[in-house]
């Protein structure tokens, strides 16, 4: 079967009923979608399928043949975060980080369909996404900051100039960069 993951076409060989989550994580090595509850109740596995957020733990591969999948790896790169990622960074929207990929994908889709969401829109989009650090206030603040463009541009390129020049570039499976 064939998937287009973050713009790159991939042939996959997992069994047709394998949840998309495990195809991404185990066959393709794309580990931003997290295996949390694995029954659709926590949101940490959320990815975009054809632009819409879906629980990848509930989606059999057979139902995704030919689909365009987007994960956090397709959102931004370590050298250049997407504004939404930078807003999470700047506003402390991520604590342990386990729920963050699902939160990012659900709210990326929200901002695509509703560029200026109300607080109610944000809460509706976050329904089904559990943060066990209970950092919801900061998460909502991050999304509001991203929506209003209140993201410092220097936060989008997190101090790479301070990095050791001998350090190898980070290789992230699934990132088209």
């Amino acid at each position, binding site marked *: 079967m064939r998937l287009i993951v973050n713009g790159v076409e991939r042939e996959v060989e997992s*069994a*047709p*009923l*394998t*949840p998309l989550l*495990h195809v991404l994580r185990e066959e393709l090595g794309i580990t931003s979608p997290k295996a949390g509850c*694995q*029954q*659709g*109740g926590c*949101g940490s596995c*959320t990815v975009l399928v054809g632009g*819409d*957020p*879906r*629980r990848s*733990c*509930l*989606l*059999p591969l*057979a*139902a995704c043949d030919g689909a365009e999948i987007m994960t956090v790896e397709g959102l931004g790169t370590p050298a250049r975060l997407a504004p939404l990622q930078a807003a999470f960074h700047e506003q402390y929207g991520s604590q342990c980080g386990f729920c963050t990929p699902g939160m990012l994908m*659900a709210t990326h889709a929200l901002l695509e369909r509703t560029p200026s969401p109300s607080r109610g829109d944000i809460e*509706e*989009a*976050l*329904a*089904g*996404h*559990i943060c066990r650090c209970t950092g919801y206030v900061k998460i909502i603040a991050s999304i509001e900051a991203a929506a209003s463009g209140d993201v410092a541009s220097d936060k989008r390129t997190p101090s790479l100039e301070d990095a050791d020049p001998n350090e190898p570039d980070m290789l992230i499976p699934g990132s088209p960069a």
Partner: protein
Amino acid sequence: MIRPGSLRELVESFGDGADTVVLGGGTVLVPDLAHRHVRPRRVLLLPPELSGVSRADGNVTIGAATRVSELEAADEPLATAARHLADREVRAQATVGGNLCVRGGETPRGDLQAPLLVLGARVRTAGPGGERSMPLEDFLASGPNGRVVLDVAYDDAPRQTGYAAVLRPHTHHYTILAVAAARRDGETRVAVTGAAPTAVRLPSVEAGGSPEDALNDVDPPDDALASAWYRSRVLPTLVGRALSSLQ
């Protein structure tokens, strides 16, 4: 795993349904399959042809593969129940066919069943002996029972409708108990989700009894969301609210 391309292929592949599981959206079945709680010999997906809502000859027909999210602006009380179900991602994946086949266990399931019962829905299925159409209450009583759901239909005559529910406050909604009501030509139908393994009608209330009479018709269960005691206390209140909200 078989992916039928059409309704005809689905019915042919399904055959007598022996050791076969039909996968709608997978929101209930995929975890069961992944953890091998269910080990069918064959899994069939629903063809795209069975997706969508159509209106013709005074009937509304909802294909088994229609997503719950497509019903959020449908007729009441179906639309309210659809909007109450879980969260955006699950609503966009879960199907009507699956919702009619699930039974409550650790938590109530099948939020669309009570609204469809009060709309007087009939279910069209295929299986041994060919196609069959039956009232939804008969389908729910017997379970899928070796048959595949093709669609569900009701007549679109104007009705007064009401809906009242208690939901577990969580990051997404879990329905503890929900009561749907519809009145048409002086006939009132009332049904409840969360008081039995599937939604059921409340004949004592429909016959003109008081909301408390609902407890003559059902014996609500204990489960992970609420106790039988709590449900028994709340049910008459919800019945009263659903009836008084009929409009």
